[in-house]
């Protein structure tokens, strides 16, 4: 993918009220690479992801997309104008654990909405592109369905199509398969794998260690707001040195064995 984004995260800090959710987080993501974020519940994975498109506002440090600081005009400076921020968000797709589709619109409507309101395309053109995006995730025959008439896996694929239709250069996934029945996980992961092979830059918060092992270029482990370690999947998942990673993987394996 020619226009894939890079992301640089430098000494990022974020509080939720009194709670220090991100502590001096550093992370580099190269264009076209897949990064999986793993770690125990409450470690700050979602918070970090939401800081990258400034849905959560970090307080200090820098997050740069293709070299451009997001959220602030300069490091430690004033907030960037809302219009400028929206422009940056256009090219960052996000997929949520709970899908977050708009239930009053059809699948096609969900995907076309951003094309019309954000990209300003006329309805016919927006719908044509929305159709293409839905075809790409294998849902050409479900375009007219409202979300309530789709399975969880289908809903999540519509959500992915909604993000892809905007032609993003970076995709953020926050536990995209955690709300799905086990038999529906595969169809969503397959769409994500295709995207990865096409060269999309992807940051994926996940508990799917298989996906992390086989698709990720790097795996980052977080605990208590700190980015403990980042390395190739094998080093983190199979030869972890840090005791915190070992402990995390041990509980993961215990939970997943029977």
């Amino acid at each position, binding site marked *: 993918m020619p226009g894939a984004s890079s992301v640089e995260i430098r000494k990022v800090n974020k509080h939720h009220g009194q709670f220090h959710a991100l502590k001096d987080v550093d992370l580099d993501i190269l264009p076209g690479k897949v990064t999986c974020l793993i770690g125990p519940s409450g470690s700050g994975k979602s918070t970090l992801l939401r800081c990258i498109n400034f*849905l959560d506002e970090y307080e200090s440090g820098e997050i740069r997309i293709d070299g451009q600081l997001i959220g602030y005009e300069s490091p430690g400076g004033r907030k960037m104008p809302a219009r400028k921020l929206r422009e940056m968000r256009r090219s960052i797709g996000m997929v949520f654990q*709970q899908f*977050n589709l708009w239930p009053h619109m059809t699948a096609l409507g969900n995907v076309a909405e951003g094309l019309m*309101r*954000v990209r300003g395309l006329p309805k016919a053109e927006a719908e044509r592109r929305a159709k293409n995006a839905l075809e790409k995730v294998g849902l050409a025959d479900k375009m007219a369905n409202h979300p309530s008439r789709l399975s969880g896996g289908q809903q999540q694929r519509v959500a992915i199509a909604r993000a892809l239709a905007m032609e993003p250069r970076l995709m953020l996934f926050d536990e995209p398969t955690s709300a799905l029945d086990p038999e529906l996980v595969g169809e969503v992961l397959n769409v994500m794998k295709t995207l990865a092979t096409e060269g999309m830059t992807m940051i994926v918060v996940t508990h799917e260690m298989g996906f992390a092992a086989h698709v990720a270029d790097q795996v980052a482990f977080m605990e208590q707001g700190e980015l403990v370690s980042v390395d190739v999947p094998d080093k983190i998942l199979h030869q972890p040195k840090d005791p915190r990673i070992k402990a995390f993987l041990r509980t993961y394996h215990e939970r997943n064995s029977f």
Partner: protein
Amino acid sequence: MFSVATFLSSFEPLFWAARYTLLISVLGIALGLVIAALICAASLSRIAPLRWFAALWVSFLRGVPLLVQLLLFYYLLPVIGIDVPALVAAVGTVGICASAYISEIWRGAIQALPTGQVAAATAIGMAPRDIWSRIVLPQAFTLSLPALVNELILLVKASSLVSVVGILELTRASQAQAATTFRPLEVYLAAACIYLLINLCLAALGRYLEHRMAV
């Protein structure tokens, strides 16, 4: 004995009076919807004094009986030099009172929407104006329809209170009619039928709207 003839002949003059009931209810709710939109916006505003004002508005209007509000409106305004016709006082009070309830209905509906839907819209770069007009309000409005129809039905019934400022609406007219004909049972039964008819129509309208706007 119950006289069917009296019962039937009561309808015509009562229909006449029922026009006031309808007029006051419909204009009242229309005014109420407009004010409620402003109060609801204020109650969700980031500006604290606006939120306080909305809270005060709602708690006063819900805490004081409509009858007292009506009398206040009708007798207080002339004191400060504003002379209001009875009909204006009635519609104004009913509207203002309804606005308190409707704004709370809407606030509840808006806050009931899962926050993730707004996050998803924000994430693709939608502007707040579009998020409100395309995502939040259409759903909140649909969600609030049953409660709105309920409110309108309550208003139709509460509109009988405006007789205290001298408007001959349905209830007041039936009292007068009962007094002149000495046939209270027939007259009040006819009045009941008219109220019921109005409210059944409203309920049907509500169901139609809900059906049309349902996903």
